[in-house]
């Protein structure tokens, strides 16, 4: 199998303001993200040769992309739960590598707040068919499906619930601090550990501030052949690895699954490290945007991705290892927690932050001399997952 390392570069990116965009439709979010990406790449829509749009609920087919008015080119809608945005980028990247086109666009969008309900609309359970459910699926919520992990993590690593909740709170506090420095974030407020710990319970042991925002937003990337990248800009970002790993619900079916790790995360990252030639991710990765849909998942991701040893994420949290000033800053833009989580846009929003950071354009959130950045998504939940890990860098090789 051929390596995709350094064959494709991102030469333009855009990201809409995330949040409760009551006055913006899907079309406004798409145009906002795409316009910024075009300006950033210094090209117009006419130069795009193929496009992929990712959305979970906010449209059917590539016609969803029509507001951007690309003219008679191959376009496809993709969907892969919370990894949808990354899936669009993966498709565009693969098309470039295959030689099917030289310049492609990947865009993700979600307009969750049009549902008019609290929380995320859609099938109650992963993979349930929204048009013909049997009605037998349990009526548990998304927070509950991650609370199983927290319950189990506290139990297995002998953390009293108060201790466990404080550790999780540190993650929410960190992400809110980062988000407060970001004009495009959904929330811009700082939180204290006390506030997080005392927040109303949503699904014990997870409270309100352990859960990410339900937001509207869009994000966009323009990719091209690595050897053409400098024709667009002096500081292109090179794709080192793009890997998606999907299970067969083994964890929901088999008793040997422990609910304190996600196999799909582990395997997606191993493969990505191999593609990118990374031996020690804790040392080699400069910055990471990971899927903090719930604080417990960010904590488990530290371990799944090899940033922390199993059961020892708590030491790194306590040492501030993942803060803006730490050795490996995670979710520098506020993460899903604070920047918001419009499902189809999130993967590309993460990449937008890494891209800006690697170009030294992240303003007050800028980390020092980053070289390699990582994005991670999880579609689904523990036991039924879609793990996705991408790695990009600002230099070839």
């Amino acid at each position, binding site marked *: 199998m051929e390596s995709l390392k350094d064959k494709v570069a991102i030469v333009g990116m855009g990201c809409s303001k995330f949040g409760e965009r009551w006055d913006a439709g899907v079309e406004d979010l798409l145009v906002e993200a795409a316009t910024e990406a075009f300006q950033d790449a210094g090209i117009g829509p006419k130069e795009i040769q193929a496009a992929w749009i990712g959305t979970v609920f906010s449209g059917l087919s590539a016609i969803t992309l029509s507001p951007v008015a690309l003219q008679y080119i191959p376009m496809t809608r993709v969907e892969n739960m919370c990894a949808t945005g990354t899936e669009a980028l993966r498709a565009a990247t693969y098309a470039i590598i295959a030689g099917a086109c030289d310049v492609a666009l990947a865009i993700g969008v979600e307009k969750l707040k049009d549902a008019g*309900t609290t929380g995320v609309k859609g099938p109650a359970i992963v993979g349930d068919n929204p*048009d013909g*459910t049997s009605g*037998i*699926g349990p*009526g*548990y919520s998304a927070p509950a499906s991650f609370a199983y992990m927290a319950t189990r993590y506290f139990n297995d690593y002998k953390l009293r619930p108060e201790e466990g909740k404080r550790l999780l709170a540190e993650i929410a506090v960190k992400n809110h601090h980062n988000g407060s420095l970001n004009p495009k974030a959904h929330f811009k407020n700082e939180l204290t550990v006390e506030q997080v710990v005392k927040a109303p319970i949503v699904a014990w042991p997870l409270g309100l501030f352990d859960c990410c925002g339900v937001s509207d937003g869009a994000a966009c990337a323009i990719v091209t052949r690595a050897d053409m990248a400098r024709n667009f800009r002096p500081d292109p970002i090179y794709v080192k690895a793009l890997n998606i790993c999907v299970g067969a619900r083994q964890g929901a*079916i088999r008793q040997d699954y422990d609910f304190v790790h996600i196999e799909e995360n582990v395997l997606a990252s191993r493969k990505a490290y191999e593609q990118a030639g990374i031996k020690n991710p804790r040392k080699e990765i400069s910055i990471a945007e990971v899927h903090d849909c719930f604080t417990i998942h960010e904590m488990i991701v530290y371990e799944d991705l090899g940033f922390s040893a199993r059961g020892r994420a708590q030491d790194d949290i306590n040492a501030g290892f993942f803060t803006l000033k730490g050795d490996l800053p995670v979710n520098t833009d506020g993460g899903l927690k604070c920047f918001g989580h419009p499902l189809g846009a999130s993967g590309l929003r993460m990449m937008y932050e890494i891209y800006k950071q690697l170009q030294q354009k992240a303003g007050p959130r800028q980390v020092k001399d980053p070289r390699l950045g990582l994005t991670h998504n999880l579609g689904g939940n523990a036991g039924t997952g879609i793990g996705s890990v991408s790695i990009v860098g600002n230099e070839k090789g």
Partner: protein
Amino acid sequence: MAGISAIGSYIPKYRLNLDEVAKFWRIRGLGGEKAVAGYDEDCITMAVAASLDCLSHLEGDVDGLYFATTTNPYREKQGAAIIASAADLKKETRTADFTNSLRSGSIAMRAAVDAVKSSSAKNLMVTISDSRLGAPQGKFEQLLGDGAAAIVIGGDHPVAEIEECYSVFNDFTDVWRTGKDDFPQSAEARFIDVVGYGPTMQDAVGGLMKKCGAGPRDFSRLVFYASGLREHAEMARKLGFEKSQVQDPLFASIGNTGAAASVLMLAAAFEEAMPGERILFASYGDGCDAFALRTTPEITRARTDPTLKTRLAKKTLIDYGKYLNWRNLVPVEASSLPARSEPSLITRWRERKSIAALYGVRCRKCGTPQLHPIGQAIRICAVCQSKDDFEDYKFSDKKGKLFSYAIDQLQPTKNPPGLNGVVDFDGGGRLICELTDYELDKVGIGMPVEMTYRKMSQGQGIVNYFWKAKPVAE
């Protein structure tokens, strides 16, 4: 000769204190408690629980299931078939509903006796379940409780022999509900006692004793239906029985459970009875069915746990507000959470085996029992990837342990907060499912659970039943 081969019961765990109801309305209270079906229970789910309890006391299987109730969720669609499929009875099982009368249970029992006597069937199970609703502030609200019983009429190894039956019918309008009524209505109490209930009971019980050539002294126990405690005590006296002979009607602990009431009393009597006792059993409603029973040495089988006595002891009091909400007696604010999509009849049909009795599969190659999380057919083993090499594997009768859980404030439930979790079955297999009938302060990793058939949701007037986990009664 036909006899009773097994008896089973089910009482929901929730109780409403009648003094609380009386205090709320500033009216006279009956005192005591009544049993209340959970928000996710109805007469079908209670009948499934009673049937499974009854079958666990029976050697062999049954040829038929007769379901008796006055509160069938469907006007047109059989309850017995739903219960039979949840109890995983063989497809040749004959099913019938006996409805519209408080006496429907004993009417079904007589039909079963005839079938067994004529050798048309070996064992027939009669399952009786009722969940009648009294209008708030009224006497029925305090009187009526929820419960279910099941009884197998058969020939071999009975716990009690049926020596004689005697029945009368009576077109008497004492209690009624038209098709449009949510609540029962009734005639004046004195009129019912003097003209209807009294003479009808005396007629049937007298007729039975005459047929057996016996008098009240020849029976050690009298088990019979009355609408309430006072009526019960008065009738026992009128029939010439001593207080010591009269079986407790359970009204003070569970209320009047309608069609199920007399058979639940009989279940309690069997748990206490010695071999060779003669029991007079009478059920009332549009007439009366009276039975002369004689216990056999097998009667000690009726004492196997869980008995009715242990079920009565395990209870949780709910407040009146919760009761009103569970029974849809007050309008409540709609949830701002997204509604679940309506179930498809077609997928429910396709997944019927998994829905009805929680069937999964066991891989013939690697031996792993597996249950699909959303009921889809498993064609390829999630463990060893063998294709279509499975045997059916039933999970509804397996116990398990809670591997992890969440106390879920967002779960759609009328008994918040919701609890859902990961259940690992003894012998293999895992299911992420809802829990019910739990005490939150006793929930923890490793908690032993068993499966229970419940209402999940209701759409288009169709009741969607499925299985939830509940703590195993200690």
